[in-house]
């Protein structure tokens, strides 16, 4: 009797209409029908339910589906329970029996098709390409009244029985989403690709089973403007949907027209939808309106001849009004910025600590992923150097803008490693919460405390860092010469202090070349004393530190290599005015006049610390070298000689 029944499982018809990949709303994507690939915008947890009123002969309400979605990185998992996805038919079997009182009674049958629940998984290979699968579980409940003649002893009577069978099966499909560009994307999906489960054993029910013809569907989503989308989906079974969707701020509008080859007229119905998007929820109010009369009486023969093509959408489906509520619950903070790359612009020389406060050691390239201005707080930390993150200045980034922000670091005073280590730096971007929006790690070379980058200007950090030792030492030396110093005019105090300190300084030192084969190594003053020697930069640093510790202004003189061995010695400020030069020397090549910060001309004396003889010799050698290379050969003017003030 039912040999021609043609019932297919769910295909692309959804209760919220067809929205394609729905760039502005996630709600339509909970429907596996039009979203076989389980594509989702949910960033963390998503929850949705559809409640509807069906205008059958007796209006009834029902929860059609309850869905849950969870995104883990590029993976999305979803599940849905669909208590309202069912369709039941009741009809006469075609058999009747004549009862004892000669009345006839028809035997009835029913079949109830249900989609109970489904599971989905998808993986986003990129923003443009994702693949997913959905599996749905169906049951079919068949009931049929029958009469069986019973021959008991000599008596014959009819026994009225119910024959029933429950058939369960899964169907699975695959889907692919590909965005050609921001305005055009495609959806490819299978229909009834995988089918496994039971089949009806009873021959009377076999022909009533849901048909599971294998097919495919292709969807095209075209967004000519940000505010509008045209969506079309075609199924190889011959059905299609055309939808126009509009977006205005938080509101959305949709109108889907659907054709079903099993229904009349050509456009069987429409699904108008109004939607609203809140901060964490979405509301959809939609209707399913059929263009044919759904309240007429339907005959068994029509059902047998044409069947139904879809549990939700078939010639016997009724008009509906549906409310869909979706929640987007983000327990994980949404990433708003991305740290694309970090460039380390300086290796770490721990002694140059002040330098890192003034100048960034790295720059990060950051992109704002949001539509709003966002304030970013960069932080960095070097493993083995810092225990806490060091904050750099905050930066404001325009929507979707890419900027380069500096990362600063602080070298703790306590850092004292004498080993060069390859460490790594962690870079963080913070926006609102105390958890970083993004982070990046990069290798960084952390030199020892004695490492020097060869730039004379950075020798000052060695001078300053050991100032306590130098002050203690210098004061002790000067105290032992208090008698001499007390008899001198105040104007010559700096000169004689420098002289006394020098003579005492060099008395026990010898010149020792830099012990490192590669790179520069600079001793702190106390190490020079301990080691009783050093090279030019060690000795200059040590002497400069002694003078600075007693208030004598010094400057390092950088004689740049220019094919020769690079050399450093120093100048110190006698605080004498040019008119007072005669008290030191009548040889005007032995001193040099420099203008102080307050505009006064002051006499500076060059000292060649490496002479290691006595002050007069060192002064003489220093003056000769300075006079020759800096003055006569125009070294300062040519940049071959550079004077570096310590402060």
């Amino acid at each position, binding site marked *: 009797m039912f040999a021609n029944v043609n019932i297919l499982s769910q295909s692309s018809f959804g209760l919220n209409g067809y929205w394609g990949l729905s760039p502005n709303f996630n709600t339509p994507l909970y429907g596996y029908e039009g979203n076989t690939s389980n594509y989702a915008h949910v960033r963390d947890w998503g929850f949705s339910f559809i*409640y509807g009123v069906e205008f059958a002969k007796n209006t009834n309400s029902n929860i059609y589906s309850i869905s849950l979605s969870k995104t883990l990185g590029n993976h999305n998992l979803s599940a849905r329970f669909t208590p*309202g996805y069912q369709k*039941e038919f*009741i009809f006469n079997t075609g058999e009747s029996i004549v009862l004892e009182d000669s009345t006839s009674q028809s035997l009835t049958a029913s079949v*109830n098709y249900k989609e109970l629940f489904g599971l989905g998984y998808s993986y986003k290979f990129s923003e443009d390409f994702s693949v997913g699968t959905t599996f749905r579980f169906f049951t079919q409940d068949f009931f049929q009244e029958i009469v069986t003649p019973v*021959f008991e002893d000599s008596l014959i009577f009819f026994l009225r029985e119910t024959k029933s069978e429950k058939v369960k099966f899964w169907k699975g499909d695959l889907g692919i989403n590909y965005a050609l560009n921001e305005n055009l994307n495609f959806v490819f999906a299978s229909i009834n690709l995988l089918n496994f489960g039971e089949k009806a054993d009873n021959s009377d029910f076999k022909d009533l089973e849901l048909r599971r013809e294998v097919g495919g569907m292709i969807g095209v989503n075209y967004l000519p403007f940000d505010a509008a989308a045209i969506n079309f989906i075609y199924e190889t079974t011959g059905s299609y949907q055309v939808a126009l969707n509009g977006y205005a701020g938080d509101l959305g509008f949709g109108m889907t027209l659907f054709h079903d080859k099993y229904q009349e007229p050509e456009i069987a119905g429409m699904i108008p939808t109004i939607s609203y998007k809140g901060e964490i929820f979405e509301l959809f109010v939609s209707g399913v309106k059929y263009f044919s009369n759904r309240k007429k009486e339907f005959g068994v*023969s029509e059902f047998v001849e044409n069947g139904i093509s879809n549990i939700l959408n078939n010639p016997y489906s009724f008009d509906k009004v549906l409310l869909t*509520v979706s929640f987007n619950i983000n327990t994980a903070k949404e990433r708003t910025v991305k740290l694309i790359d970090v460039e380390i612009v300086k290796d770490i020389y721990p002694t140059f600590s002040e330098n890192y406060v003034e100048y960034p050691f790295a720059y990060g390239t950051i992109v704002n992923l949001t539509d709003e201005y966002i304030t970013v707080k960069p932080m960095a930390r070097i493993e083995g150097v810092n225990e806490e993150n060091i904050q750099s200045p905050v930066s404001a980034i325009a929507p979707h803008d890419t900027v380069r922000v500096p990362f600063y670091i602080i070298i703790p005073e306590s850092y004292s490693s004498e080993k060069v280590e390859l460490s790594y730096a962690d870079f963080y971007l913070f926006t609102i919460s105390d958890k970083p929006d993004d982070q990046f790690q990069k290798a960084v070379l952390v030199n020892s405390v004695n490492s020097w980058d060869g730039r004379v200007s950075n020798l000052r950090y060695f001078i300053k860092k050991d100032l306590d030792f130098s002050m203690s030492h210098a004061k002790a030396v000067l105290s032992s010469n208090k008698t001499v110093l007390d008899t001198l005019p105040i104007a010559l105090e700096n000169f004689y202090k420098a002289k006394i300190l020098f003579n005492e300084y060099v008395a026990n030192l010898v010149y020792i070349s830099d012990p490192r084969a590669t790179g520069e190594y600079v001793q702190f003053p106390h190490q020079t004393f301990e080691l009783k020697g050093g090279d030019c930069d060690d000795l200059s640093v040590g002497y400069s530190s002694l003078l600075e510790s007693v208030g004598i202004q010094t400057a390092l003189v950088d004689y740049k290599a220019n094919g020769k061995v690079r050399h450093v010695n120093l100048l110190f400020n006698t605080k004498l005015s040019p008119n007072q030069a005669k008290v030191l020397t009548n040889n005007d090549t032995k001193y040099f006049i420099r203008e102080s910060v307050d505009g006064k001309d002051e006499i500076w004396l060059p000292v060649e610390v490496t002479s290691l003889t006595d002050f007069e010799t060192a002064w003489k050698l220093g003056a000769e070298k300075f006079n020759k290379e800096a003055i006569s050969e125009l070294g300062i003017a040519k940049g071959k000689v550079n004077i570096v003030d310590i402060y």
Partner: protein
Amino acid sequence: MKNLLTYLFIVSVGLFLFGCDKPAPTELFDDSQEELAEYEILGKDINDEFYSNGFDTTGVTQDLRELPNLIALSGIKVTYVHGNTDEFSFAQSIFFDRTKKIFSPGGRFLGFKSVIPGIVSFDNKIARIVPLIVRYRENNVLRHDTLGNKYILFSGRRGDMDDFRYRHNSFMNFSINIFFGEQVSFNIPTPIEITGNVEILGSRNQDDLRALLQWNTGNTHDITIIIGARLRDRDIIMPLYRVKTIDDGSLLIPSRFINQIPIQHFDRIVFTFIRRFENTIDTNSGDLRVSSQSIHSIVVNL
């Protein structure tokens, strides 16, 4: 926002609690022109020949207790197990006196007394008057009682007892000259001849013994099929079921109707196809049923 969420939560809970109707089922009305079959038990006790009364080749299977006054014309074919077919013509008329009930010695109501109100003719052939005999079993004894008389005309393989021929798809005349009264005469239309075929499918061992019945379609909306079986020990055909179905040419009798027939009691099944014109007229003497039928009985081994 917080208020809105609270509101949504309450609405959601409300929907869950009160929104759990089941989608309305679709009730389909019976407009099928195929495969309709109405089953009726005829022989309620196979040990009681009472239920076989009237189930001869005439196709009359009605319970004589409820049978109204009757005028019946039958064109009958019987195809035996070996494939031979005999043809018969049969006409009968029975009139009851509804004021007189006849009971068995044991007090069982057997039917109303039949009467002879006049002279009956079919196609101007005067019908013979024969006893209307009722068989039944009481106290385990087979008894034959007479309800009265009836009118018959018969011709067939066993000799032309009467000069009477049933004509298919035609009109035949009935007349009665009521004693001391008027003559009533009218024509009775007859249906197209029915020719059936029985194909037994499946096997009893596999519990799927079915019968595919096929026949030529005719000029009636439905036909009746009587499924009877021959009692092994008594050579009596016992009507079991009456099946009324659309005159569409075929019907599959489900296995439960065939497989259940106990072979220890029965050795043959008789499928009787009946295409019938029937009309019941309300008369002063009670209802008068006028019927004409083409009958084809096919006997098969069980």
